[in-house]
Structures are given as C-alpha cells and as structure tokens.
C-alpha cells in the first residue's frame, strides 16, 4: 500500500511546480510532475511585428534571462535569411557565456545548495578547522579563521533572533544531511559571497544589452555599435570592463564553485546511483565559433543519445516533421485530431479538467498539467547540462573528456555515476569551467576583429518588411542553461501568424504520454529513497538537479474557442 505525498510549491525554482509522489517501502514508486500556471503568450504574439518578438518571449523567463530573446532573433533571422555580422555573433556568445556563469552559480548556491548543506549545523563548526579545510581545497583568499568566525557569529545572532527569514522551516537536522559542520560553514559563507558576486558578472549584459535582467537584442545583429572613438559606443573602456568581468567570473568558478562542488559531492557519492531516470539525452548544440549556420563549429555539439549508449550519437533535425512532436494526452489542452504535432503545425486549445481549487490532490489518472509532452522520434528525452556534457564526451571532444575524466578520478567514481542526480549537478559545474574559458576566447576574437578594422554590428538590409517574402517559416535554437530550447515562427504578410516554443523544462517536467512513457522528472524520481514522508528533501535534491524553470505553458485559442495555432512555453 503506497502513501501519496505532495510538494507544492516546489521552491527555489522559477515558476510554479507541483510534485505528487507515491511512497512504498521507503521509496518512490511513482511520481507526477505538474505545471500549475499558464500565461498564453502565443495568442498575444499573433499579428505582431516579428522584429519585436524577442522582447515578448524574453519575458518568458527572467532567471535564464536573454536566452529566449537570443532564440527568437535566431528564428526570425532564419525565416528571413539574415546572416548577422561576426561581431554580433561574438557579442551574443559572450553574453551567453556570462548568462551560464551567472545562472549555474546562482543555481548551485541559492537554489540547490540547501538540499545538501545544513545551514543551522554550520553554527557548530570550528572556524580554525574550517579555515584549514578551505585553504586545502582552494586559493580563494577569504578563508581565514577570523573570517569564518565572524560569519558564524553573524549567523548565530540571526538564528537567535527567532526571525529565520529564508531559512525558516528548512529540513535542518534531517538524517539525509551528511556534511561535516565545517563544510556546511564553507557552503554558507559562499552562499553569501555568491549572492554578492552574481550581481557583477551580469554587467556583461548591461554593457552590451543596456540592462539585466532582460537585456536588449536585435534582429539582424546587436544594437551596441562599436565605436572606438566615441564615448557612446563600445570603446576601449567598455571592452576592458567586459574583459575584467569575464576574468573575475572565471576566477570565482574555478576557485569557489568547483572546489565546493567537489568537496560536497565527495560526501554524497551514494547520489551517483540515485535519480538517473531516462538515460536518453539530447542537445541542440550552441556557441558557434564560425557563424550560427556552421553547426560543426559549435563549442557545444548537437546530438541525441539513447539508453545511455554513449558509443552512438544521433543527429537531431528540428525541421523534420517526424522528429520533434508535442503530445497532450495528459495535459490540460485539447487537439482536433490525435497524436503528436510538429511545432510548425501545432494546434491546441486550453481545457482545464483538473479539480476545482482549493484541492488536496490532483487526479493523476486524468490530465494533470499545463505542460504538453514533447517527444523526439517518440522518445522521452532529458535535456540540460548532463545531456550537453554527455554529447560532448560521446563525440570525443577533448575539452569535455578532460574535465569529465578528471572529475571522475578526483571523486573516484565510475563513469556510470554520471547518469544520476549527482552527475547532473556535477555536469553543471564542469560545463561552467568550459564556458568561463570560452567567454574569454570569444572576447579575444572580438578584439581581434576590431583590430583588423571590422566594426560591423548589425545587418539592417532586411529590416524593412517590404523586402520580406509573403510567407516564411523559421526555427531558432539555443542551449539554454537548462537545456535544449527552440522557437518556431511562421511569418505571413509581415506579421507573426504563429509562434511556438518548446523549452527545456517542457522536455524534462512534462506529464507522461499516451503510452505511459514518463518524462525526465518522473523517471528520475522513481526508486528514490525517502527517509521521512513529512520532510521529503530527497525529492528536492533530484528535482533541483534539473534546475526547473516553469515560467509558463502557453497555448493559443481565440475567444470562441476555435483553434488558431499554438505555442508551448515552459521554463527557459
């Protein structure tokens, strides 16, 4: 006999996620993942100017900010056959790298760490021992006994005040927390340092895009003109600022994030065998070195892996009718026909059939989520850092092999440990080190171009809609921090006729399909041990390892309920 438990809201994520799980004999027998908020952005986009779309869809997510805008301008440029200048590609890449560094560090410390780090236990740490430990794993300068002792006093006073704020009602003291007090104290110190650090790296966006969150993009390139001899353009001062931010970002990742990740992981090696899930991984690839159209130049290669078989990487084609399709068998939508639909041909109408709120439980024998269910050639796929790292590793890319093999050796775990909750969390850190270096490489290439006299930043030759074809289809893709992201656009008579997004968290968090095939979250939760039904910290560990981003699940219908077309947005 199983017991149903509910976690809603799942906190430390973007958006609104609900998990229901059936527990039997101390383990999860089955789990259900439900997205419970919808905004219907696609109906709002219909009829608008395709050049404006990036701003609307940018508002899908403010955590993985910029990635939807990037994907959108790529989709429109694909539809209108625009090739952007190399400098614009480089600026977009540098912003992308800055976004990864920000997003992954914030995820690790502010969204994920409290699943592993017992904040209250940190008060028991010996500051001197903490200092010795910190200095043994990193050269990071803030590591003196006095530093840790001051912090401990500050937190001690905070806890005594009785006003625990964001730490209220945490699962402190739970048997699943395994770190020594000293490691907990280091984790807490770096939680606060990372909170201060994260506001710096985003300034790369502010310089190129004017602000963060939600920097500005532009169809045809970027709006930040290069002008080495004017105070308003990208001049030596602005570029030096970017370089300094990238270097400081890399330093934090190498000296704080990675040592902490490895130290914490070494106490949770059992999680290298928990939370594996599907075993199917997919990446669309990103960070072009030689233009977006040259997919072979991507620093993150594209491909799909099935059944953990890393000897074989398959190609993914976003234009083919029978590859990416979306299903709604367990979603609060309805189709006219049956089966799955490619996003260019998608249709749907929202139809909430869940219980009337307030309710205690969803009826999971029926539709139970605002997320649709995407499939690749009928397969449920996991997307995200682990998928990217595995595809890079499986394709034999040296940079990937180096960081992965070193981590496996340092932790003394087999390669199979990658297929797990721990593997997912580790992969995010490993790719951060790669991206931190690539950001600097892209920056150097930008400087090189400017030195050679190329200052072009935008191609305006097709900004005038009279130069567009009457009808055009486009697809843009990106590897968002949370995984493979694509937008499909249909332009008719200078306007958006249809705009659709299939986003990483839709792949990972969607409900099961008609065949009963579960998606990544539900697969990963199965068999997870739960020590205390009232404090299911283990569920949070695995769900957070995906870094959920449930900004919205959006579908299109008109006021009469007549189908027009649809998009599905969920997460980044």
């Amino acid at each position, binding site marked *: 006999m199983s017991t149903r438990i*509910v*976690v809603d*809201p*799942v906190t*430390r994520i*973007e*958006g*609104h996620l609900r998990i229901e799980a059936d527990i039997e004999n101390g383990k999860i027998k089955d789990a259900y993942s439900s997205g419970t*908020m*919808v*905004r*219907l*952005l696609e109906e*709002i986009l219909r009829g608008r100017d395709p*050049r404006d779309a990036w701003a609307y869809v940018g*508002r899908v997510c*403010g*955590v993985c900010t910029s990635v939807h805008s990037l994907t959108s301008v790529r989709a429109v440029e694909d539809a209108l056959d625009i090739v952007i200048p190399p400098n614009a590609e480089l600026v977009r890449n540098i912003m992308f790298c800055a976004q990864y560094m920000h997003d992954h560090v914030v995820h690790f410390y*502010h969204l994920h760490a*409290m699943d592993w780090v017992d*904040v209250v236990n940190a008060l028991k740490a010996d500051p001197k021992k903490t200092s010795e430990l910190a200095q043994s794993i990193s050269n990071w300068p803030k590591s003196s006994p006095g530093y840790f002792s001051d912090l401990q006093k500050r937190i001690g*006073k905070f806890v*005594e*005040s*009785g*006003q*625990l*704020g*964001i730490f*209220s009602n*945490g*699962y402190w003291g739970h048997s699943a927390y395994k770190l020594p007090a000293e490691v907990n104290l280091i984790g807490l110190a770096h939680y606060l340092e990372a*909170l201060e650090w994260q*506001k710096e790296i985003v*300034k790369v*966006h*502010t*310089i*190129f895009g*004017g*602000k963060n*969150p939600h920097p500005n993009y532009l169809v045809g*390139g*970027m*709006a*930040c*003109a290069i*002008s080495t001899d*004017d105070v*308003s*353009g990208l001049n030596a001062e602005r570029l030096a600022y970017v370089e300094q931010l990238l270097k400081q970002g890399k330093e934090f990742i190498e000296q704080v994030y990675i040592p902490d990740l490895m130290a914490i992981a070494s106490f949770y090696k059992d999680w290298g065998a928990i939370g594996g899930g599907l075993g199917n991984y997919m990446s669309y690839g990103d960070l072009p070195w030689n233009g977006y159209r040259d997919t072979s130049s991507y620093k993150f290669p594209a491909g799909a892996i099935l059944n953990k078989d890393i000897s074989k990487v398959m190609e993914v084609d976003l234009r083919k009718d029978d590859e990416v399709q979306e299903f709604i068998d367990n979603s609060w939508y309805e189709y006219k026909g049956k089966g799955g639909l490619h996003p260019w041909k998608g249709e749907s109408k929202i139809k909430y059939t*869940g219980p009337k*709120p*307030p309710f205690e439980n969803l009826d999971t024998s029926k539709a139970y989520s605002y997320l649709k269910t995407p499939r690749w050639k009928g397969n449920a796929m996991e997307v995200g850092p682990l998928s990217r790292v595995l595809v890079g590793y499986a394709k034999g890319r040296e940079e990937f092999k180096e960081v992965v093999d070193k981590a496996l050796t340092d932790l003394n775990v087999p390669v199979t440990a990658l297929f797990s909750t721990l593997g997912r969390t580790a992969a995010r850190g490993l790719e951060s080190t790669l991206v931190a270096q690539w950001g600097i490489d892209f920056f150097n290439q930008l400087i090189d171009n400017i030195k050679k006299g190329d200052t072009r930043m*935008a191609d305006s030759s097709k900004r005038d809609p009279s130069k567009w074809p009457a009808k055009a289809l486009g697809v843009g893709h990106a590897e968002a921090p949370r995984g493979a992201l694509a937008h499909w656009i249909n332009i008719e008579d200078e306007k958006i006729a249809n705009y659709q997004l299939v986003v990483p968290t839709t792949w990972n968090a969607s409900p099961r399909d008609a065949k009963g095939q579960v998606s990544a979250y539900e697969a990963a939760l199965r068999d997870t041990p739960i020590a205390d039904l009232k*404090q*299911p910290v283990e569920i949070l560990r695995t769900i957070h390892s995906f870094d959920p981003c449930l*900004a*919205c699940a959006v579908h299109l219908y008109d*006021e009469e309920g007549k189908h027009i077309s649809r998009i599905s947005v969920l997460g980044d």
Partner: protein
Amino acid sequence: MDNPNVPTAPTYLEEFKRKGYSRADFLKFCTLMAAYLGLENSSTAQVVQAMSTKPRLPVIWLHFQECTCCSESFIRSSHPIVADVLLDQISLDYSETLMAASGHQAEEAMKNTMTKYKGEYILCVEGSVPTAADGVYCMIGGKTSMQILEEAAEGAKAVIAWGSCASNGCVQAAKPNPTSATPIHKLLKGKPVIKVPGCPPIGEVMAGVIVHVVTFGRLPELDGLGRPKAFYSKRVHDTCYRRPYYDAGLYVESFDDENAKKGYCLYKVGCKGPSTYNACGVTKWNNGVSFPIQSGHGCFGCSEENYWDNGRIYERASAFPGFGIESTADTVGKVALGVTVGALAAHAVMTNVRKKKLIKGLEKEGKESEQELKE
C-alpha cells in the same frame, strides 16, 4: 556572543554594535542612509530612531503570473547589497525563489508570519493574477492566486506591487489578455499599494523602496499613479545624456549606421524615452553601468502601463513637442503614442523658447557661485 539567551530580535543598532561599529559609526550610517533617501538633515533623527528600536521587518513575497525577473533584479542591488538586506533589514519569511522550505513547510512559514505579525508585515507581490476561469490559470498548493492574494493581503501593513506584472499586468495582459491577467491594485480594496513598475524595476530602486519602508515605517511619497516619486517622476527623455542630439535634430537613422556610432538620439528607431517615467537615465542599471539607450537600443517604455500595446518597438513615437523637463506623469497624463509628421520642427521651436529661460537661469546660478568662490 553578547547574550545567547535573549529571545527577542535584535535592533539595527544592536546589529551594528555586534559587528564592531560604534554608536558614532551608526549615526554616520543613518546620515548616509538619509542622504541616500534624499532627506533633509532633520530627518536623520528619525532614521536613527527607526533603526535603533525595530526588529527586522517581516516580508511575505508572493509569485503569480511572472517570470521572476523582479526577484532577480532585486538580488542585483549594489546598495544596499541583498545579503545585508536579508540578514539585517528584513525577515524574508516567504519567497518561493529563495526560501529553504518547500511544500507544507513553506506554507506553514507564511501562515506563521501572517498570524504572529498581523498588521505588521509587508506583502510583496511579483506577477499578475489571472481572474479568468475562476483563477485556475495560476494555482499554488492547490489554491488559486486570487485566493492566496486575498488571504495574504488581509493582515498586511502595506502591499508592494513589484514590476509591471503586478503594477499593470505586463506581457500577459497585452491584447487580447487571454487569462484576464489583472494587476493587484484592482483586486485589493482598502490597502495601500506601492507600484514599482518596470520589466523589471532597477534593483537599486527595489532595494531603495524596501529601505525606505524599513527606515521610516511608512510608505514613500507616491505620485498620482501610485509610484514612488523618488524614482518615477522624471521622463527617461529628460534625463537622457543623448537629449542634446534630439534637440539638435541629430538622429540614428538605422542600427549600426554612422550616427549610431556617434551616439546620436535613438528617437527615430523607436525610443519611447519621451513617454516613459523611470530612473534609468539617472540611476542606470546594475550599479550604474549603463542603460538601454547608452547601449544603443531605444527605451521601449517597460515601466509604462500597457506598453506592449503602445505601438511597435521600432516605430517612431510622437515627438511630444510641448512637454519639457518640468512635466510629470500627473500633469501630462497618458499621451497617446503615434507617428507625428512635422512634430520635430515644432519641437525645435518650443525647445528654443524654453531653453532660453533655462539658460538664463543657469547663467545666473553660475555667476552666483563664481561670486561665492571669489569671496
């Protein structure tokens, strides 16, 4: 530690002393804080009083139809930094983005604050509330956002509407607003609501609003639309460093052209600075690094009501020839945006008339200060 058995929350002064600062340091801090808030010297005493006696301000921060850009912007604040806000100034008892607890424990944390600090806590809302289909388009813990808002607002001392979603509905309320996304002031009766619009608002502005409430125990002064005057009383256009190019009739004609490289005015490529009230031109973004116009893209008016439906992003707005720096949102009101041919010439005339006065005033000021220097 001073006294480990004290059960009550420490005051700001105690926090200061614990950190090794003297009372003199504390007074200096309060003076700075008052200066930061743009207050007269006489207000300093008030700041000292407020910060010496109060436990941390309890805050409940709800998320509805949103993208979390407001929470992200808040943690970007450089002064004060958010770690200090969280540890020393407020007690953020419920925040789906940052709190450790999930599920029942999270709901319980919110309930505890609502009971224990009834009438004292600040309710912050990020996101709009969908009222269509009985509210099922946004549900948390099995309840609709409508119900959660109602419950949480009841015992709140004041409500802060973060960002354009909570202030005016933002992107999901753009036509045809399929979920009936509703800004919160339309759903709350008898509660003061501070609107802090923008997509997102500037981080330092958000922290500034919180600091104001913490320090004075009262709301900042608001304009006719419910926005803090300190940050929303000037148009981006009137505080823009590219304004002289507008006045001189020098414009970027298309992105990345020669004029763009010279940093000319972006009005012709769609800048909505002339109709947007925000602090971007002064406070700027991310600790003053830049703002959209400085980085070559026009302002698209993200802090204005219904900005998604106020014309296309790259469409030229009307020139607003008759309005100058002295206008505020209260007096100008909502002027419809649209393409006006010939408005530029009219503007030039108006500007010259007004500028003469301005220049005369400045000259006088300059002479006076010169005189002072000589004396």
